[in-house]
């Protein structure tokens, strides 16, 4: 019942590349966008910077709305927008749009918490120096938050891999797509198993890498 080995591995390889592509592209976009959103939420909540309750609550509400939708629903809802942004409604490129929106909201919350966890006293000490907000943010806030940020990027990356698997349901490609079409619809247990094993290994490696980087920084300081 198994197909030839080269066909099998070609399928897996293609799916892996697609998963990595979707994940990497949306991770990069969401860390940048979510990080910026998280930073703005922090800055508008902090009296030492630009406390602004209305703006803060507006951003918080947007994040909550996105976060309250399961990814599957968000994806179906947003895909028409993909046509507009990346020119297609199918394939990995189309899935990157909802994936980025979802991960941005996810990471924004985590980034905000990472900034808020930085010692208020340290921030106060450097605001009191008369330095500009930009300088305090870039040279103090970001480095002081980097361990928490790295941990949260790891968490976000793993969640994005998980969500990207749902892309299979809309023909998005990747390991989820493969497991769904071959493993589930065609009873190809070997392909299903291969997808499961690869996903487990990917997640383990990412977690190990994330923990390793954090441990190195901690050891230094």
């Amino acid at each position, binding site marked *: 019942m198994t197909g030839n080995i080269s066909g099998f591995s070609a399928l897996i390889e293609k799916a892996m590349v697609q998963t990595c592509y979707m994940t990497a592209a949306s991770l990069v976009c969401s860390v940048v966008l979510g990080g910026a959103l998280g930073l703005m939420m922090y800055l508008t909540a902090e009296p*030492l910077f630009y406390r602004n309750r209305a703006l803060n609550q507006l951003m918080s509400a947007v994040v909550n709305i996105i976060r309250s939708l399961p990814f599957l629903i968000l994806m179906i809802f947003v895909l028409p927008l993909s046509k507009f942004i990346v020119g297609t409604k199918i394939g990995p490129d189309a899935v990157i749009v909802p994936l980025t929106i979802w991960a941005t909201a996810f990471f924004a919350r985590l980034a905000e918490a990472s900034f808020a966890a930085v*010692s208020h*006293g*340290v921030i*106060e*000490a*450097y*605001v*009191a*120096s*008369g*330095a*500009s907000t930009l*300088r305090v943010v870039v*040279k*103090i806030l970001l*480095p*002081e938050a*980097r361990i928490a940020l790295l941990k949260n990027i790891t968490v976000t990356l793993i969640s994005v891999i998980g969500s990207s698997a749902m892309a299979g349901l809309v023909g998005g490609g990747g390991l989820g797509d493969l497991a769904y079409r071959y493993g589930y619809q065609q009873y190809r247990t070997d392909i299903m198993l291969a997808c499961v094993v690869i996903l487990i290994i990917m997640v383990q490696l990412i977690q190990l890498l994330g923990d390793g980087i954090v441990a190195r920084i901690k050891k*230094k*300081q």
Partner: protein
Amino acid sequence: MITFNDVSVSFEDAGEARTVDAVRHVSLHVPRGSVYGIVGGSGAGKSTLLRTINGLQPVSSGDVVVDGQSVPSLGRGELRELRKEIGMIFQHFNLAESRTVGDNIAFMLEAAGWESSAIDKRIDELLAYVNMSEKRGAYPGRLSGGQKQRVAIARALANNTKILLCDEPTSALDAETTASVLELLKKVNRDFGVTIVLITHEMEVIKAIADEVLVMNHGEAVESGHVYDVLTSPKSEFTQKLLAHTQNYHIPDDVWQSITGEIVRISYHGGSAVEPVITDTATKYGIGMNILHGRIEYIASRPVGVLYVNMIGNGDAVEAAKAELSARTAKIEVIKHDR
């Protein structure tokens, strides 16, 4: 150097939806080059008042004038320029953990626009001054509390600051380290003429370092003046209570029980403490005076003290001796009567 004119600060307590009056109508003048202590319990408003000097805390009404500039009326940019001249140190040191000792100081100099060649030299100079030269490349996580505070002092002085704000600088330190940090602050004041405003809940810190003191309670200025005057003749009940535990001594119960004759508590201020009052009086009236407990300390180089003395002799002589003591010392109280 710093003048508070009828300063009040209130803010909304978001949790309880009410307004908190943290500082109420405080007026005060901090002379240039002085060490000004602000003492009070927690929630007295001293930390809030301190932060109005560099604008970390906006005032609700009144004015804070620093070196001729009205802080509440400064724009964002002007406020930042003023902050570059005001250093600040904290109870928990607040060094950036992600930067080395040298880089923590370098930030201040970069922010103030120093040339990079000058920055390097200035960091060496500052670390040598606070005795931390060998720790330039160390991360704050590897330093003890006292070492962190020394680095924080170097950081605060980096840009040749004229004013140093100290927010409970010794409250997280042990007694020995506290003494060395206070010595360093005094030295900073002497060597560079930096005006120091220091807040603390400990009278001992005020005694050790301050020239003038403001006593605060519930956001109000209770009393202020020269440390020696406030400590030796406190006018308010609150100050008296604050001082009580540093000037009352406990005589162990079995000693108290076994003693015959009167026990008096004699308070000394200023000149009288250095005169041989006790021996004079004992000799003159032919009585025994046995010192049971007490302490004489020096505030602003003037002696202040309390002695618990057991007076032994016949009634008339003791009464006459007490009259003499009463005339020559600040205060005498009989705390145990003759049986």
